[in-house]
């Protein structure tokens, strides 16, 4: 299987797309935890 046969390229393409989605999800999670923390600190007056 050479590096640029159609099959390998399709595998790479899907891996890239999944990594991108996972990266976006993680970034969103970081933002979410930030806002949850702020809200919790206000709730409990910390």
């Amino acid at each position, binding site marked *: 299987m050479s590096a640029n046969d159609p*099959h390998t390229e*399709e*595998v790479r393409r*899907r*891996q890239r*797309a*999944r990594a991108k*989605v996972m990266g976006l999800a993680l970034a969103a999670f970081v933002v*979410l935890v930030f*806002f*949850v923390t*702020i*809200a*919790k600190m*206000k*709730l409990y007056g910390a």
Partner: protein
Amino acid sequence: MNSTAIDSPPRTLPADWRDFVALTKPRVMVLVVFTGICGMLAAPATLPPALAFTAILCITLGAGAAAALNQWYEADLDALMKRTAGRPLPAGRMDRDSALHFGVGLGVFSVLLMELATNWIAAAILAVSILFYVVIYTVWLKRRTPQNIVIGGAAGAFPPLIGWAAATGTVDPLPLLLFALIFLWTPPHFWALSLFVRSDYAKAGVPMLPVVAGLKATRRQILIYTLLMSASAIAPWPLGLTGAIYGATATALSAIFVVLALATLANPATEPRDMKPEKRLFGFSVLYLFAVFGAVVVDKWLIA
């Protein structure tokens, strides 16, 4: 069980990320999210926006996890039905382990995040709802009893209870009645559907009521559950848990539901093309649930 095609799908390609999204049944989620939000908005306590958003997100992810695990377990069955044969697993676009890992991971994540953002009661009910749908419904009862839909309905009835518990940290009579409402709504809703897609379920060997007990018995059961559902839909009003806006809406819509169920009972048709009353009942049932839950919220916010 002929599942060789399912156990050894082509593993040459990693699944496309869109198929993981499809695994969560995004279209079914609309009702889950909506009833969850309504349960939360009907509660006497109000969450800060960030926590409310997170709680609804957790309910959504939990429902997605349950759907993914359901498809992980039912891939052999889904392959036999026209409606479900195109799902990622039966179509061979994803291997079963990926679906299992995705489902378990998403479920655990949703429960932990719920505890972090709100309280352990909401997190516990969320965990119970996922386990109930996957273990009690999918694994245990769906293929064993024609009352499978009734059991499955209980799983779908949790969101308003979780939304309420996320806001208040308690379980109270109103969300329990809303739970009962969805629980009793599910059988008429799905049996109406199963009357006109009956042949598909028969092929897959799922003991749906029309297949096992016949059309007449199914139509009678639809009416019985419709009456019980109407009772629990109207109950919050005389009990003083909601106001007249909700009471009038629930009563009027339940009356229409009963009329449509009676029309179904009166229909002797055995062929799907003659099942107009069944199709109308199915269509109205979706509208009914949205409208009644909307009324709970409108009623609460107008009185406040």
